[in-house]
């Protein structure tokens, strides 16, 4: 069971990377040729272990960091696809996880400006259309990140 639990996690991440969205429990069950009930138990267990995060009281994956299961203000264009990241950190986490070049467009809080970033050959460059020094605000210390992950 333990092996299949972690294989389920790996499948979900692979599915995100390939398609930009998470697999449903039914898709995962079919992939491993197991029952939906068994796949559901793996989803719940992996959620409890913080391997990814489900929408409350559902089996829908909201976050498998750095990937977001829902649209956000942080878009990452990579490998011919557009991914949504959970936050300003995760928008950089996607090219880091995929080990690829990427163009990121993201909305800055308060100013509402859209900025462009590029990751190329492992280096970060900022679009010349803005002279601002971009900053990321971490509102909570690490010890409290999992209190409310959506807020974090």
């Amino acid at each position: 069971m333990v092996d299949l639990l972690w294989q389920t996690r790996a499948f979900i991440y692979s599915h995100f990377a390939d398609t930009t969205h998470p697999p449903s429990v039914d898709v995962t069950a079919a992939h491993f040729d197991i029952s939906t009930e068994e796949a559901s138990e793996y989803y719940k267990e992996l959620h409890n272990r913080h391997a990814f995060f489900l929408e409350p009281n559902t089996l829908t994956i909201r976050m498998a960091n750095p990937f977001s299961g829902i649209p956000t203000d942080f878009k990452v264009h990579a490998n011919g696809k557009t991914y949504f990241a959970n936050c300003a950190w995760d928008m950089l986490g996607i090219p880091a996880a995929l080990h690829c070049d990427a163009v990121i467009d993201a909305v800055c809080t308060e100013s509402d400006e859209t900025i462009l970033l590029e990751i190329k050959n492992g280096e970060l460059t900022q679009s010349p259309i803005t002279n601002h020094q971009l900053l990321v605000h971490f509102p909570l210390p690490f010890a409290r990140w999992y209190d409310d992950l959506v807020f974090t």
Partner: protein
Amino acid sequence: MLLFQSEELIDKWCKRNNLKRGEILTIQQVWDLSKLWYHNRLSVDFHGRSVEQVAEVFKQAGLKSKFWYV
């Protein structure tokens, strides 16, 4: 974690949301942290991190303040 164009805008957002200012990193610092944090996320062998491993990532990223204590 949200993206801002100045510390003044961060303070404005914190005040409006009645929150204390947290930790602020430059976008380059976050890229460096991302590479350390996420480089092996798609590996079949990644099963999460121990407290010690998290502390080591923060140390390698140069994040040493109390904010990053695990």
